[in-house]
């Protein structure tokens, strides 16, 4: 197989609050010989908030982000569900509305760019599963996660709304997603079946409605714990910031102690590949990853 190469849309958190996501992403990309070319010109995607304020501006900025991948002739890889949705939504709107595309291109032209719609946009999870391949992943496993019961937490923006994601997430069904479950099994782990796997973490109201956010994450975490999960895993750094960093506040709101290790998807893959915890940035995780000796 020819080596895979993508335009890497890093986003904001991997360089700030989730350095462990950056480290583990790069570590497993290297182990799989996947080349990630950083989109150094890219801006923040607007994190699903900026469109509330100025929808057109947010669309123009994301169109610009995509332009730089088109210039390189590469598919974009994201490592955050919300970046994925914001870029994919911009693409979906521009590809299906010629008038809107013309309005956006009129702005882009003034900085010498043009949106053409030639680059796909994929979350790293689906680049691994659908492009690199689940069997290829399984064949590289050195430390099967065989004693671990892992609760997959998909996060909203990778699976909903399904028509925006289409084939870029392998046509995952939002009511019964399977990619993370299949990945866990390929790594030798047990995937935990529980009702909240495709539910929300509450991140986007964390500042203005912390009670709502904490109750939403709390219900999901309790569901995972009640179903005997040793750890949860998520492909989204925003879910991770909620579930990992906020465990104290969540416990307080729910009136019971909720503590469980939370892995980023690439950290889980890295552990199974036998990559050292240091290289996967495990020391940055707040909830202790108690199953690593």
């Amino acid at each position: 197989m020819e080596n895979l190469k993508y335009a890497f849309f890093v986003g904001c958190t991997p360089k700030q609050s989730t350095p462990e996501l950056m480290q583990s992403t790069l570590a497993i990309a290297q182990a799989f010989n996947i080349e990630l070319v950083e989109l150094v010109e890219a801006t923040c995607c607007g994190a699903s908030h900026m469109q509330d304020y100025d929808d057109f501006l947010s669309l123009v900025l994301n169109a610009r982000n995509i332009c730089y991948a088109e210039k390189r002739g590469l598919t974009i890889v994201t490592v955050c569900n919300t970046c994925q949705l914001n870029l994919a939504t911009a693409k979906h709107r521009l590809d299906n509305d010629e008038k809107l595309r013309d309005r956006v291109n009129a702005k882009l032209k003034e900085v010498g760019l043009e949106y053409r719609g030639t680059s796909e946009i994929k979350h790293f999870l689906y680049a691994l599963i659908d492009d690199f391949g689940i069997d290829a992943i399984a064949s590289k496993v050195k430390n099967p996660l065989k004693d671990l019961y892992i609760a997959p937490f998909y996060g909203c923006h990778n699976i909903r709304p399904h028509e925006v994601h289409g084939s870029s997430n392998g046509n995952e069904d939002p009511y019964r997603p399977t990619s993370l479950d299949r990945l866990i099994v390929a790594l030798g782990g047990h995937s935990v079946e529980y009702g909240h796997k495709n539910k929300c973490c509450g991140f986007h109201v964390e500042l203005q409605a912390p009670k709502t956010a904490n109750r939403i994450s709390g219900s999901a975490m309790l569901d995972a714990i009640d179903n005997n999960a040793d750890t949860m895993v998520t492909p989204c750094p925003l879910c991770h910031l909620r579930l990992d960093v906020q465990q104290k506040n969540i416990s307080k709101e729910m009136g019971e102690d909720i503590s469980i290790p939370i892995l980023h998807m690439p950290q889980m893959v890295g552990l199974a590949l036998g990559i050292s915890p240091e290289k996967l940035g495990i020391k940055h995780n707040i909830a202790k990853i108690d199953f690593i000796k």
Partner: protein
Amino acid sequence: MKKYDTKKVNFKVFRYNKEIDRLPYYESYSFSVAQDEVILDILNKIKWEKDGSFSYRRSCRHGICGSCAIKVNNKPVLSCKERVFDLIDIFGYELVLEPQDIKQAIKDMVVDKERFWNKYSNVKPYLVGEIEAHPKLEYIISAQESDKLDEADYCIQCGNCFYACPSVQVNGDYIGPAAFVKAFRFNMDVRDNAKKERLDIVNQEGSGVWDCVKCYECAEACPKELSPIDKITKLHNQIFENNMAKDNVATRHAVGFKDSIKKHGFLDEGELVRYSEGNVGVLKHVPEAIHMFKNGKLIMPWQMPKSEKLDEIDKLIKISSTVKFK
């Protein structure tokens, strides 16, 4: 002729009669299902062939009255529209039929929708205008004007979005997606005069649009494909466009992105929290911040990453901005 396809399916059905049962229970029924049968056919079969006391709502059988909405394996559906074969493709041969909200069940699939209707009536879900009591002519709006409703008038009040919404589930005050769709529908009507009043209602902290967690459950749940969350975004936009945005955590949170992108290309996470919460409010985040700092999850201002081509970004923001906040 092609052989008529049938499949054997086990239905696990929520049963409960508030008047006599202490707790709900599940009953299993097996049927051989034909390829064109919908969930409503199954509900009918249970009632007609197995248990005459089984209760559910239905009326039009054509996806228009909105009364037959239930959940199948947690997926909100309109019973009269949802083919069983499509559900088998997703969930396999055991399907769990439940009412929209088991906590509000009265009898089997029938729920008490009082909360839904209360929220709905909150947003002035009717035309407020100077319309004669006995008009001689119709008050017609043009095709372009009706396009602006963005199909929001197709809502059949089935409640699927409302009962799928996690914010509704944990916050009793939250108005919820269906009522927001309705508020949007009348706000876009050129004949209506109550736009600002409606915006005032949906702009409230704790109950209004700012408490939407952006999960897109409502977009998936809507049988009319109205994408309630997109209408919610448009209500946010109307609040800014009409200069009604209050200076609070939620609005500053939305606005802060623009300033940060202008300065760095990226979002300055620490600064966004400080700006959104204000210098006093930010103090409540100190305990997490200390924890994050210890684990190397907070960077110092001078370490803030920057995008290349900041001049280009700045120019694009200048020429593409459509809204001002104060």
